[in-house]
């Protein structure tokens, strides 16, 4: 006995509390337990192609996995060139999203909760996740792909780094995922929607996709969105833009007109309709549309220039 009894009484609970805290940050809360129990059976997507990471390329490896699973033949080395930052020794989240777009896949960032992630996995879509395997102050960032889970055993199954079908205790994994802000993303072919698309966020996602993707891929994505939200002007504007890029002027005109049917004064649709009408040999119709935009703060200048062109063509055609 080197210590007095009061000292031991003070020290022991403190040590126990600390140990519990260490384990506790990896604990499964009631919400996570419910999320897991919502699925009666174990799920594993098969087969999910596995790209073992080389060097510090967990980003390209994880991206290759989800792109391949969504039907895109990928070249791992090409992906390294597209997303890896040599002097940072890693890959940024935003570059993974950008690279998916460049491959005509829609990157959809899930809501930061376990239920959303498990639901997508159960629907057969592997989920790319960011993990922090260090601690908050000394982070070690890692990307992996969730391909399955087992509610009974409370385990999660991943392709991670150099390990295929790695099974980890859900508690441990949740800790790493939570420390990384619960960031999770799926790669969608243009003809698919996520299970739970938030309308506004999905429209923004497609607008960002349209700029980068091939026009036929963008057109398909907008058409799917129009089936879901036909009263949204943007889904028709997007279709018009894609049709125009495909050289289908009549279809572009119809799409922009539809946008104006559901939202009569939509400025972008008004402007784009006018531009396509000029090119499609109906400049006099374009003049009327452009005149409504002359007071618009963001478009007055462009509308003014285009109006001159439209008037000139219209006069010539008379």
């Amino acid at each position, binding site marked *: 006995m080197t210590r007095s009894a009061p000292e031991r009484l003070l020290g022991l609970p403190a040590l126990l509390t600390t140990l519990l805290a260490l384990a506790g940050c990896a604990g499964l809360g009631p919400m996570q337990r419910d999320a897991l129990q919502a699925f009666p059976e174990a799920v594993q997507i098969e087969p999910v192609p596995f790209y073992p990471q080389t060097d510090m390329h967990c980003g390209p490896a994880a991206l290759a996995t989800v792109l391949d699973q969504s039907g895109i033949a990928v070249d791992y080395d090409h992906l390294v*060139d597209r997303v890896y930052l040599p002097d940072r020794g890693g890959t940024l989240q935003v570059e993974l999203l950008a690279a998916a777009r460049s491959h005509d896949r829609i990157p959809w960032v899930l809501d930061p909760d376990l239920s959303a992630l498990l639901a997508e996995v159960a629907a057969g879509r592997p989920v790319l996740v960011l993990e922090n395997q260090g601690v908050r102050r000394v982070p070690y960032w890692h990307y992996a792909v969730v391909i399955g889970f087992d509610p009974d055993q409370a385990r999660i199954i991943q392709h991670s780094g150099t390990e295929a079908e790695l099974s980890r205790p859900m508690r441990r994994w949740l800790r790493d995922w939570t420390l990384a802000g619960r960031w999770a993303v799926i790669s969608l072919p243009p003809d698919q929607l996520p299970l739970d698309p938030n309308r506004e966020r999905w429209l923004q996602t497609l607008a960002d996709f349209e700029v980068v993707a091939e026009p036929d891929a963008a057109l398909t994505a907008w058409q799917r969105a129009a089936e879901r939200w036909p009263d949204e002007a943007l889904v028709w504007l997007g279709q018009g833009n894609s049709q125009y890029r495909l050289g289908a002027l009549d279809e572009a005109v119809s799409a922009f007109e539809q946008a104006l049917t559901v939202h009569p004064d939509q400025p972008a649709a008004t402007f784009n309709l006018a531009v396509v009408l000029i090119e499609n040999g109906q400049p006099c119709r374009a003049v009327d549309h452009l005149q409504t935009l002359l007071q618009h703060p963001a478009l007055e200048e462009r509308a003014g220039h285009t109006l001159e062109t439209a008037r000139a063509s219209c006069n010539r055609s008379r």
Partner: protein
Amino acid sequence: MNKKPLRSYLMACLLSLALLPLATVHASADLISSQEALAIERSSHTEQVQAWLQRDEAAAELVALGVDPTLAQARVAALSPQELEAIAERLDELPAGAGVIEVLGITFLVLIILDLVGVINLFGLGR
């Protein structure tokens, strides 16, 4: 006598070649993208323009981190305005997933030991 038509033919070819890129750029730049339409709707149009200016800045950041300049241009071209802003303004704070698992395990162990050592000193145990 034969030279004249040939020369004018060549000139016409050159001219049309020179005008070709102009024509395509003009055509595709004319329409308002859905991305810009959303920005106009939210009246964040000036922010959008600013983000486009940040494209060069972001590309320079990538080049500084060892990315080939041509690749850097292609990489930033696929970023959305919001993503560009993140790179241009706080690249250093963004997580960069690397996944060096072996080093990881060791470091985590050391951190736990350091933690425990701190606890022991704090409560006077194991001295």
